[in-house]
């Protein structure tokens, strides 16, 4: 069992969220769909909805401050640059990075993972070196390593899972003992099983073996208090749009000592110091990794998103979702012939619920749920190796967030009964 992850923060009182009041801040959730049905949005694992403060911040940026960053000397350029760099500082506080400069803005979390693979691993790994991933990874934490394996002869190996959907950490120990592991790349929270992996515990093992630890934090940063210093990984990637922010913006956090050693992945404007016809020198991190005009309005939205999350309190959000996990697992038990995947223990589970009806295809399930106003996702959720393990090419997945109420789960359960009746 891997619930050995010590609570990073000391136990403290949390304040109960009222998700229905929270939902009032999200204009999109107020609409009616399909002939007057309430929209029950249970696809936050794919992307979260945005509070009006985020939408307004981006709107205001274009109304008041729009300019390109860093190069201009005029008033708008100064404003835009300040917005862009303040967002970086705000993000560094939010995840407790050591320095603002350790926050690299990317297009999305996928680009952040690729930046580690191509900027770091391509430079320092050689044929025969091992990269350890796991059975529960999103394709964004598999394919970049596969590309490297093809080009450089790096070997990619995977940690298998226990029956409850937790990592078989003894397999990691065995890989590390082999002495060839240079990188371990794991997700913090599974986007299908909801498993919360014991990152701090794993970080210690990885570092004892002299390897680098890369974490996919896409499903963690929006839902749990994340403190990169206490987690102790070396790189940590996540995206803005799953944490109330806009699409088109991702984050790679990396230790400055590692970022400094890395080669740029994209070349072009913004990231250079000096350019001649035949050669160029690069800026220090993070600028080195931010070639071209970056997403600027998106960083304005990101700042508003981080403010919203901090104001609400990440510990409160986690407490709310943990309660929702218990409630949902219990309610789903009442649906006949429904199989729910992932850990039963709410302590090590986030608000992600992949499920399957015996003999009803996930797309049929999702289609009928949609007809009832309940938005879930169906498919392999960019995790084909995991679905191979589940023995099912596709599952339906409901995922919760701070605006998800028990009533939403009740609506899901009711709609699942409709599915069962239709297919009975």
């Amino acid at each position, binding site marked *: 069992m891997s619930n050995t992850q010590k609570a990073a923060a000391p136990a403290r009182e949390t304040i109960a969220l009222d998700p229905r009041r929270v939902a009032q801040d999200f204009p999109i959730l107020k609409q*009616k*769909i*399909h*002939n*007057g049905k309430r929209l029950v949005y249970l696809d936050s*694992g*794919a992307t979260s909805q945005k509070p009006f403060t985020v939408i307004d911040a981006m709107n205001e940026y274009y109304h008041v401050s729009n300019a390109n960053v860093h190069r201009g000397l005029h008033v708008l350029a100064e404003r835009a640059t300040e917005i862009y760099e303040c967002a970086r500082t705000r993000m560094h506080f939010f995840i407790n990075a050591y320095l603002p400069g350790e926050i690299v803005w990317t297009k999305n979390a996928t680009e952040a993972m690729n930046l580690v693979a191509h900027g770091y691993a391509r430079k320092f790994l050689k044929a025969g070196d091992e990269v350890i991933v796991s059975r529960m990874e*999103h394709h*964004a934490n598999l394919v970049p390593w596969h590309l490297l394996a093809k080009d450089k002869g790096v070997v990619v190996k995977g940690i298998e899972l226990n029956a409850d959907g937790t990592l078989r950490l003894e397999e990691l120990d065995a890989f590390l003992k082999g002495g060839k592991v240079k990188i371990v790349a794991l997700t913090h929270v599974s*986007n299908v099983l909801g498993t919360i992996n014991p990152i701090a515990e794993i970080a210690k093992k990885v570092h004892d073996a002299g390897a680098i630890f890369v974490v996919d934090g*896409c499903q963690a940063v929006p839902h749990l208090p994340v403190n990169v210093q206490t987690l102790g990984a070396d790189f940590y990637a996540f995206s803005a749009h799953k944490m109330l922010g806009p699409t088109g913006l991702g984050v790679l956090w990396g230790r400055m000592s590692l970022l400094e050693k890395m080669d740029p992945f994209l070349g072009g404007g913004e990231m250079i110091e000096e350019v001649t016809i035949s050669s160029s020198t690069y800026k220090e991190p993070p600028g080195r990794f931010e070639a071209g005009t970056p997403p600027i309005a998106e960083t304005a939205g990101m700042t508003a998103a981080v403010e919203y999350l901090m104001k609400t309190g990440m510990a409160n959000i986690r407490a709310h979702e943990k309660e929702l996990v218990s409630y949902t697992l219990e309610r789903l038990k009442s649906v006949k012939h429904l199989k729910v995947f992932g850990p039963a223990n709410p302590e090590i589970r986030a608000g992600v619920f992949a499920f399957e009806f015996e003999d*009803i*295809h*996930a*797309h*049929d399930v999702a*289609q*009928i749920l*949609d*007809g009832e106003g309940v938005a879930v*996702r*169906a*498919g*392999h*959720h*960019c995790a*084909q190796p995991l*679905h191979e393990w589940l023995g*099912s*090419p*596709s599952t339906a997945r409901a995922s919760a967030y701070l605006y998800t109420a028990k009533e939403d789960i009740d609506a899901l359960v009711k709609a699942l009964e409709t599915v069962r009746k*239709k*297919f009975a």
Partner: protein
Amino acid sequence: MQDAHNEEKNLDQLYRDVLFEHYRRPHHKGELAGAEIVTKGNNPVCGDKVTVYGKLDAQGERLEEVGFDGKGCAICIASSSMMTETMRGKTLAEASAASDKFKAMMRNEAAFEVPPEVPDLEALEGVKKFPVRVKCATLAWTTLKNGILAYQAGKTGGETVEACETNTEKE
């Protein structure tokens, strides 16, 4: 609001009773022994997987029997079942043309016509309004055509991958 209302109606059009009948009791499902045409179809995004069988007459020109096996959503299985009804007794050229025509109909590139011998096919017209599901309906039809082409080229086996036009898998 009007649109929302139409969508509501469409979902009933998608899961028609006739379609459910074919889904629950598919025609010609199961391995067809002695089939000359045996070919697989795969829709990796949905996880629909079918194998389509064709047994030819003595001249090797006409499909005497058509069958399928596999797993998939209600649309995929019902459409596979109706495909076997449609194709039985057709020459290879006729079957290829029928496959093309069905695909064109489902993609709104041709008028939806129901062959008198397979009236149930009408139940699939509603699928057109759900673009993401069209490939579920066309999988078995495309697979049979590719099986015919492979047979004519002197090959057996092969796998058809039905590309997903609307990728719903972005995370």
